[in-house]
């Protein structure tokens, strides 16, 4: 189809500059200020856990968008061309995420008990229900080549710089192509995707191991990076759906989106629901089956108190994740009618976003233990700071997206696949 290489630019709705980016920034700064105020209520350590939760959540969303852009290019996909531009706006948040991560590192250098205890080999484990120091812990010394401050800072910095660079390539290529329609931009994006996918796969695994998994550095799980990957892509797809809803309601996407696009993004969301379940179950099942104490303790503290053996709140959070993160989206997304209903998809996307946050809380917070080695409860005042931190960091991410939004056309109008995408038929 020769006519499909270019779309009529006049058919693309104009993008308005006044889209509430100021409001998003205000909400973001407000959330951050409230979180800082939380230090005086709950202490620095709990707020650091809350901040790490928000950073892991929103970095995951941005990573998911970056991955979807790269997957789009590497497969030379067609239908996703119309939604790819929104992800290109979304990944502009990386530089702000990098900046917002710095306070955590500084706080942990000043006081390792705040978050990552393995930063300090002299840290006394008796304060969190253990014995001896980190340096005397054989499970630490065996892993110390990776679990140390220098590796942490190096890996985190290289990861953020790499993601920022990749994001800048895809944004530049796509935005320039709007001007001149040159095919070389698509080729460049494809090359950078081929480089970027393995890079991002390795770096996202590294950061989630260093940031989250190493909070309980005794633990082993080879599934952890894959788990985070599934979480990232599910989150980015949910954000994509919410953006599609927003731009349809506002009118921008009227006449651009068809039910085939809804069906396709719905199918991907469904597929990643199953993928997430596969990975998460595999992790649980292998640990359950092998029954090795160095591994099972991670799930044990998420079910019973280490000191008394009583069932704790995390058991019910785990059950909520099992049913809410898998069964609800599985049956909610399985039908055709469900996938082509924007209203229903908005409900499902919002639900998935919320449950991802709960899943990340479930992975991070039980590492915060009292002096008996019991995890702090799920429902407590300190979760308020998780909420403010998520709103704070989220406000900044949304602001970055909205700030980038008016700088380019709604869809990549001169992308070689845009015609196929606009007339896409399942």
């Amino acid at each position, binding site marked *: 189809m020769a006519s499909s290489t270019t779309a009529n630019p006049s058919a693309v709705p104009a993008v308005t500059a006044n889209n509430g980016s100021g409001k998003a920034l205000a909400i973001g700064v407000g959330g951050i200020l409230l979180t800082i105020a939380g230090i005086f209520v709950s202490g620095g350590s709990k707020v650091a856990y809350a901040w790490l939760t928000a950073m892991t959540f929103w970095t995951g969303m941005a990573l998911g968008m970056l991955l979807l852009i790269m997957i789009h290019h590497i497969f030379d996909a067609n239908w996703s061309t119309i939604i790819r531009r929104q992800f290109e706006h979304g990944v502009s948040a990386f530089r702000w995420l990098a900046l917002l991560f710095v306070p955590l590192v500084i706080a942990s250098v000043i006081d390792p008990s705040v978050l990552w205890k393995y930063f300090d080999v002299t840290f006394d484990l008796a304060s969190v229900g253990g014995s001896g120091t980190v340096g005397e812990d054989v499970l630490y010394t065996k892993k110390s080549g990776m679990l140390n401050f220098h590796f942490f800072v190096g890996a985190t910095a290289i990861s953020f710089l790499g993601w920022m660079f990749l994001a800048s390539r895809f944004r530049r290529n796509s935005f320039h192509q709007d001007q001149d329609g040159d095919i070389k931009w698509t080729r460049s994006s494809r090359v950078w995707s081929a480089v970027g996918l393995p890079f991002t796969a390795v770096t996202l695994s590294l950061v989630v191991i260093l940031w989250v998994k190493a909070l309980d550095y005794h633990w082993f799980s080879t599934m952890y990076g894959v788990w985070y990957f599934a979480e990232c892509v599910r989150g980015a797809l949910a954000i994509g759906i919410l953006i599609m809803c927003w731009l349809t309601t506002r009118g921008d996407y009227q006449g651009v989106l068809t039910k085939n696009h809804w069906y396709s993004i719905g199918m991907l969301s469904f597929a990643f629901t199953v993928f997430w379940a596969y990975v998460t179950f595999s992790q*649980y*099942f292998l640990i*359950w*089956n092998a029954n090795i104490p160095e591994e099972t303790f991670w799930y044990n503290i998420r079910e019973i108190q280490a000191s008394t053996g009583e069932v704790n709140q995390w058991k019910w959070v785990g059950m909520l994740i099992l049913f809410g993160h898998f069964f609800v989206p599985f049956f909610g997304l399985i039908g*055709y009618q469900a996938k082509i209903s924007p209203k229903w998809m908005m409900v499902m996307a919002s639900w998935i976003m919320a449950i991802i946050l709960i899943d990340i809380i479930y992975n991070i917070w039980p590492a915060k233990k009292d002096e008996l080695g019991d995890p702090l409860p799920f429902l407590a005042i300190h979760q308020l700071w998780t909420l403010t931190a998520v709103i704070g960091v989220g406000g900044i991410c949304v602001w970055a997206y909205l700030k980038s939004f008016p700088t380019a056309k709604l869809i990549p109008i001169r992308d070689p696949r845009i015609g196929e995408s606009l007339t896409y*038929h399942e």
Partner: protein
Amino acid sequence: MAASTHGIIATFNTAAEIYHAAEKVRDAGFKNWDCITPCPVHGLDGAMGVRRSKVPRFSLAGGGIGFITGMSLIYFTGAVDYPLIVGGKPLFSPMFAFPVAYELTILFCAFATIGGMFILNGLPMHYHPLLKTDHIVRGLDDKFLIVIEASDPKYDAASTKALLESVGGTEITEIES
């Protein structure tokens, strides 16, 4: 005994013609009819008023049966037929039954999808009255055909012919069954 009629066939020259003709046949309320085109015509399924395939219902049922079969298999073999404690694990747990149940879910789902497809599209079919006609050869090459079958409740030789004529069909012929 006179040879019974399979239906009426009409020829169209372009994709656009058959597209609009299909819309009118659809609106006239016919159910048992089909379009034969030498190439895919985008949107023709919509113009014909074809509903979405019912194959997914077979898939879902197959998947469900597969899951239950897998769970039951592990329960029966491990906890009923030959109870044996392995690695200190319970005789039955959905944990270790899950990989088997999961695989059987996929396997049975695939069987049901293939089987459901064959059941719904009536394959394998070794003979079809249309293959006797001369039209079909052109229909596989450069002409677009509409066939309205005599089994349709709205079928009436004279009025159906008139309808096909009015929507622009040529070479309208009755087909022997």
